[in-house]
């Protein structure tokens, strides 16, 4: 038995050596492509394309169903019917507390549409199959981009700006078409990292830092960590991606699924980590596993957002926009320098006052996944803060967990005659109505309302708003997760939440006070007794005991 064991070890060593040699030999040989198709060899792609749609046409000559699939996605439609509320949401409908609305600002906003030429929000996206933009998601050459105000078309001359705010360059469509592959983080990031008009402006947990994050910023996406791309978690099926902000999986009791099953239907933490992710055979691990039904993973494991040097916009006051200097030029101020050294605007005549934040402590709320939007047909109360979207959930509904959110604080236009949120036309270099061109709110709002087909009283004002963005990216390494005491303390992080009892948060609750009263009386009795003994010299230390 012993001899056999030694023999086996020797054999294994020889096999291992051969394997190593084999691997070394393979390194020298040309790499074999993972894909069965090298797009640079396809004859359909051996031409100089003159436009984006021409490339799409070439793609569709083989991938015949791709455009149809894309056209059924939210990426294309910008419309989402909430399964729980029936509200018709999506970018084409809702008003947010950033640039406001798409209607009347189309070529600027639809620069990030996964298509070409959607110039009118009152109409669906263009019907032609070639209007789908394949490259924005599938280019791996790294040099494909879209202009910031051309309804999704790429720059074909070095003029203007791109969707990430860079000076435009001439895109080589042939090179891009021949490079196509699975979407990388650069593809998703070029739109999703720049929502709201700049790097990390909108989400707070999605910034250009995620192109090459350190493990401290994002343990999953870091090249020194798991090196995930977006689609590692955001699985897709027929071009429809898991993970919706309109209908969130706030709780995932299914966990990793049945043994042997690899779940591809959700982007939840639990689909990989399961429902008891902490070490079970310890007090701490057991207690932490007891938390997962009430506290989202993100709450502890994303201690703050906008990490890694790029700030997020936390406040935007449109009401102060329009200030001109003595020479009649629009005022701009750069009063914030973010972690990576870049100065950011804190005032723009076109947009008003901004506030920025880095390493922001989230706002926490009970969340069951349902988000109710204040749509423009709802009457609002302008005397208070209007919630642009409301996070639904409670400690008692059995399907909510405590989630972290970015709370955007805004002040934005509303129809003060009808008490409804207003659409405004901000972009339009050649129009008479766009606010960014003419700085006239009455014209801008009238044009916005008209483009959206909404009734307008003709009067406007500004109302304070809050908008909530679920925080789920920038997961920190486990050792940087929140400590228990961040919440389990008086005035801890969850002090704003009620309806449940949290140990350690109320050291002076009625029970403690009652107990302390008894304790104080006992201690006072002992002290009184001691004093009396000292005065009477009666029981001096028991020396009288004999």
């Amino acid at each position, binding site marked *: 038995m012993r001899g056999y064991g030694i023999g086996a070890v020797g054999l294994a060593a020889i096999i291992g050596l051969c394997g190593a040699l084999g691997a070394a030999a393979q390194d020298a040989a040309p790499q074999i492509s993972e894909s069965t198709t090298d797009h640079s060899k396809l004859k359909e792609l051996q031409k100089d394309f003159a436009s984006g749609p021409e490339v799409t046409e070439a793609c569709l000559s083989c991938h015949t169903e791709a455009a149809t699939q894309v056209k059924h996605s939210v990426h294309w439609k910008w419309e989402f019917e909430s399964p729980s509320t029936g509200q018709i949401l999506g970018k084409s409908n809702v008003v947010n507390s950033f640039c406001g609305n798409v209607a009347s600002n189309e070529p600027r906003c639809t620069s990030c549409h996964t298509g070409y030429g959607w110039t009118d929000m009152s109409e669906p996206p263009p019907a032609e199959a070639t209007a789908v933009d394949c490259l924005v998601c599938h280019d791996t050459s790294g040099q494909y981009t879209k202009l910031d105000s051309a309804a999704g078309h790429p720059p074909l001359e070095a003029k203007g700006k791109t969707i990430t705010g860079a000076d435009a360059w001439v895109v080589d469509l042939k090179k891009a078409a021949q490079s196509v592959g699975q979407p990388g983080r650069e593809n998703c990031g070029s739109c999703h990292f720049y929502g709201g008009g700049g790097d990390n402006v909108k989400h707070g947990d999605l910034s250009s830092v995620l192109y090459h994050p350190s493990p401290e910023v994002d343990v999953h996406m870091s090249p020194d960590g798991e090196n995930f791309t977006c689609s590692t978690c955001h699985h897709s099926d027929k071009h429809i991606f898991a993970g919706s902000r309109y209908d969130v999986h706030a709780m995932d009791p299914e966990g990793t699924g049945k043994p042997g099953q690899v779940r591809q239907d959700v982007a939840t933490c639990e689909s990989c980590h399961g429902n008891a992710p902490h070490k079970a055979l*310890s007090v701490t691990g057991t207690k932490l596993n007891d938390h997962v*039904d009430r506290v989202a993973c993100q709450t502890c494991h994303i201690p703050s957002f906008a990490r890694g040097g790029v700030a997020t916009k936390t406040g935007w006051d449109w009401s102060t926009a329009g200030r001109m200097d003595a020479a009649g030029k629009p005022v701009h101020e750069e009063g914030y320098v973010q972690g990576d050294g870049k100065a950011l605007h804190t005032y723009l005549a076109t947009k008003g006052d901004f506030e920025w934040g880095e390493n922001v402590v989230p706002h926490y709320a009970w969340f069951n996944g349902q988000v109710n939007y204040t749509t423009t047909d709802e009457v609002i109360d302008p005397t208070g803060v209007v919630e642009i979207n409301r996070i639904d959930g409670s400690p008692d509904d059995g399907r909510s967990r405590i989630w972290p959110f970015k709370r955007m604080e805004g002040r934005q236009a509303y129809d003060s005659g009808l008490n409804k949120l207003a659409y405004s036309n901000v972009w339009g270099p050649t129009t008479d109505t766009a606010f960014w061109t003419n700085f006239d709110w009455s014209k801008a709002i009238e044009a916005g309302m008209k483009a959206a087909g909404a009734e307008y009283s003709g009067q406007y004002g500004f109302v304070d708003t809050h908008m909530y963005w679920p925080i789920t990216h920038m997961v920190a390494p486990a050792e940087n997760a929140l400590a228990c005491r961040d919440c389990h303390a008086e005035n801890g992080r969850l002090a704003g939440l009620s309806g449940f*009892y949290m140990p350690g948060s109320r050291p002076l609750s009625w*029970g*403690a006070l009652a107990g302390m009263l008894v304790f104080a009386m006992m201690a006072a009795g002992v002290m009184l007794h001691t004093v009396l003994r000292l005065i009477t010299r*009666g029981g001096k*230390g*028991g020396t*009288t*005991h004999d």
Partner: protein
Amino acid sequence: MTDTSHKPPAPFERGLTPCPDCAEREVLIYPRFERLWHWSQAGSIVILMFTGLGMNGWHNLLSFEMAVRLHTLVALALLLLWVFATFWLMTTGNWKVFLPRVFGLFAVARYYAFGVFKGEHHPYQKSLAQRLNPLQAMAYAALKTVVFPLVWGTGLVYLTYNFWETLPNAPFWLELVANVHLAVAWIVAGFVILHIYLLTIGHSFREGVRPMIVGTETVALTPEQEAYLERHETWRLVD
């Protein structure tokens, strides 16, 4: 045997009148297990109070996580010790020393309230069978049947919240349990102070603590008890 057990003990056996023909001897009163039990319990209660105060934000000398871990493990260990101690008390019959009794209660209470200030002697003389004075017996009985069960009972219910959180109004019950736990924990802390303070009365603090360390104490032995010990349990006699 059954006849004698019904006979009420003589007054000196209840510790209040001087025993005419008794000899004061140093006898093993607290066997090793009882001392181990006492000091483990004392140490545990100190750790439980320290970690409990930490969890409630009275100090930051250790993390909340460490406080919970220590509090949980020490509490479970102490419960296990109590299981053994209860078994020991029941099988040895020692549980009887904790039976509350009225006889002599007033005299001892009067001593603490008045006599101690006048330099009187403690009215209670420990005997082999009754090492606790009536006030002590009553206090320990209350501690063992009311205070401790409340604190470990609420503690276990608190600890196992995740097994019953689906019951209706669970957050309300949790809050109630947590508050009772906190209230009783403070009362235990009061007991500890009182317990230590009373060691300074009637003799020196050192004399008070010594028996629980070495196990022996000077008690009054009747000639019969002395003869029995000399004959059968010499290991209990020190001098």
